[in-house]
């Protein structure tokens, strides 16, 4: 059972990572990165690293996302790849 949840998380991580890297809209990429961070935070907690997971959730999904968005709004959403 545990294995299945983990497998789901794993696949989700890889998919979000690939989307974040490849999506053509930077804003979407930033949001996907936040999602990625959140999912990996869940994985950390699942592995017993509660502190790390908590921090990753606050930072990766929260602060970093805000930074990315603030920066993208100030510059450009456009990208070639």
């Amino acid at each position: 059972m545990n294995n299945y949840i983990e497998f789901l998380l794993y696949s989700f991580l890889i998919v979000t990572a690939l989307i974040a890297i490849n999506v053509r809209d930077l804003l979407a990429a930033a949001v996907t990165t936040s999602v990625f961070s959140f999912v990996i935070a869940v994985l950390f907690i699942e592995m017993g690293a509660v502190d790390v997971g908590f921090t990753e959730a606050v930072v990766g999904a929260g602060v970093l996302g805000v930074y990315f968005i603030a920066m993208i709004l100030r510059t450009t959403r456009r990208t070639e790849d």
Partner: protein
Amino acid sequence: MSNFFSDYSAYVLCFLLLTVGLYGMLLKRNYVKKVIGMTIFQAAIILFFIQTAYKADGTVPVKDAALPVDQTDAYINPLPHALMLTAIVVGVATVGVALSLLIRVHGAYGSLDEDDIQKEAAK
């Protein structure tokens, strides 16, 4: 196979995420994508550390009245966790600096794509 999955799959995931991150940092032409690659790369490293700390049947490293601390195998190893807290902070800091550099770059070149900027710089 299921044995391999439960034993080593997290390493494989780390490796895949490292590859994705590295691919983003080195081969993507857009600078924001490079930074995103960087966050993925760092998350993968953190995952690796957390993975090494894990103990089968271990509980979170917070003292539990029911589990005496001299049963050290009952608690997950706290050392990598502590290290990774630092590493996460370092990661955020790096991304912050990277983004402010990018704002500066965009202000002068009007783009965040390496190709455009190289064209601009060659002018």
